């Protein structure tokens, strides 16, 4: 059996990026907690910056580039997501939102998810509850209770960032073990039990 895969989506624009740094820390915390469960996961990084133009083109034409198609595939096929965005105007960045906008409806239903955000000061930390959680609720993802917001100052003080990261990683690992995602059957698979035959459709009509 292959290891479950965690997709780490980060929408940071800088290089190096504190958003990516937070994403990496959440990843490590999750892997450590999974190890304690006697499990292992593979990790794939989905960094959105290099996909920005492809995401815009996809919105205009409905055609994903090969690179974007691969990135979307990594996310929708994963067993869990860690999603981290910088805070812009008290919300997720447009790039972060746009990436999830080009994923088809229903593809993230029930997927265990850990959220993170970065910003200049802790006054932006509401982004997690006012923007990110509502969006992932709409996507029907299972989001863990803790969401880590890292302000610039958190990286240099004993603000409890490590503790919060460890807790969120623990929560994601627990959720992956206790309530792994349920997968919808491929609607093009005529052999699957949930395939809707035309006789059934006529009955509905």
């Amino acid at each position: 059996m292959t290891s479950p895969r965690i997709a780490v989506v980060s929408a940071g624009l800088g290089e190096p990026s504190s958003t990516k740094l937070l994403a990496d820390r959440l990843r490590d915390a999750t892997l450590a907690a999974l190890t304690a469960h006697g499990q292992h996961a593979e990790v794939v990084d989905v960094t959105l910056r290099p996909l920005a133009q492809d995401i815009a083109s996809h919105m205009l034409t409905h055609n994903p580039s090969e690179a974007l198609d691969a990135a979307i595939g990594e996310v929708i096929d994963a067993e869990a997501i860690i999603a981290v965005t910088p805070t812009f105007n008290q919300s997720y960045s447009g790039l972060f939102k746009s990436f999830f906008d080009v994923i088809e409806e229903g593809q993230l239903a029930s997927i265990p998810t850990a959220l993170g955000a970065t910003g200049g000061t802790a006054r932006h930390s509401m982004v997690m509850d006012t923007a990110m959680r509502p969006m992932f609720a709409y996507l029907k993802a299972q989001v863990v209770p803790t969401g880590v917001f890292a302000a610039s100052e958190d990286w240099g003080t004993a603000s409890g960032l490590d503790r919060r990261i460890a807790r969120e990683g623990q929560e994601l690992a627990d959720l992956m073990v206790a309530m792994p995602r349920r997968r919808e059957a491929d609607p093009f698979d005529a052999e699957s039990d949930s395939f809707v035959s035309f006789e059934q459709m006529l009955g509905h009509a």
Partner: protein
Amino acid sequence: MSSMQFGIFSVSDITQDPTTGKTPSEHERIKGWVAMAKKAEEVGLDVFAAGEHHNPPFFSSSPTTTLGYLAAQTERLILSTATTLITTNDPVKIAEDFAMLQHLSDGRVDLTLGRGNTGPVYPWFGKDIRDGIELAIENYALLHKLWHEPVVNWQGKHRTPLTGFTSTPAPLDGVAPFVWHGSIRSPQIAEQAAYYGDGFFHNNIFWNKEHTERMVKLYRSRFAHYGHGEPEQAIVGLGGQIFMKPTEREAKERFRPFFDVAPVYGHGPSLEDFTEMTPLTVGTPEQVIERTLGFRDYAGDYQRQLFLVDHAGLPLEEVLEQIEILGTEVVPVLRREFDAVRQDGVPDAPTHAARVAAAREAGTQLGEQGNAWTEQGARTDFDTGAAIARQAGE
């Protein structure tokens, strides 16, 4: 008629020519369509298919009117649609309009059904886009009945019931127009086409080929499941989008300004990237031939190939030139090359004559003396004209 049909289809957009700043009038574009259809017949193409829209900047709100006119102006061309809205049109009116057209054109008509993706059109016609699939299924079930049964009693969810209704005129020679079902990525529509043993059409433009491949594959396997034949005997049509000049450089130079601001994909990916992602081909006739022959790799042997040549503001003379090149340089080679590799047992493209012959052989033809319904026992005592005549004779 050969094993495959080739032609053009149009969405009927009125778009400014970005190279001259000129926007054609509705009248110019409508007359342009007539010129395109006549040109298509003149250069040996087989099909002209009209889109249907009910909002500007599109003009084609009434395809059967257009096709009726074209039927009188042409002799061989098959008149079709791309697509007829099965969701918002009354299936009774579709049955009547296309049967009428079938008679006037001596059988040179078929149609492609689609759902339409413009949200407001649904409420404008009293429907809800969320019912799209359900409408497509129920309305076609009724349309199919109207074309195969002389007296229809029917009740559904989306239309007033029918009691003792006879759709007139009866289909020409007792054989209904051939129906294609078009969809980009809804498995239910591939399933619908398969269930009835009808054709499946994929527009194959604007989208990556994986959509086309997945839909055609499902349709073929389900066509066999419902007992209509082997998967490779299913009837498949594809679209395509092309622009040709003697050299690739000339083609790209001329087309790029139209591409860059085109309503569907403008301001997005580069011409080169979009060509890579979708079946769009901008280059020489040889390049179009090679690309089109490649469609068979993912769709199998298929029956109909339609090209989009007239959108994004391309001026009429340019469009007519594209049709000319298609007819003289591209399609003759495609016919030859496709025929050379076609597997045994793959059916020819559907024509009225062939369908009548097949129905006669199978014993499924509904009468053959000129009024299929009367021969099938349809009542005439509801016919006002006949009643008046009877009364006058008494």
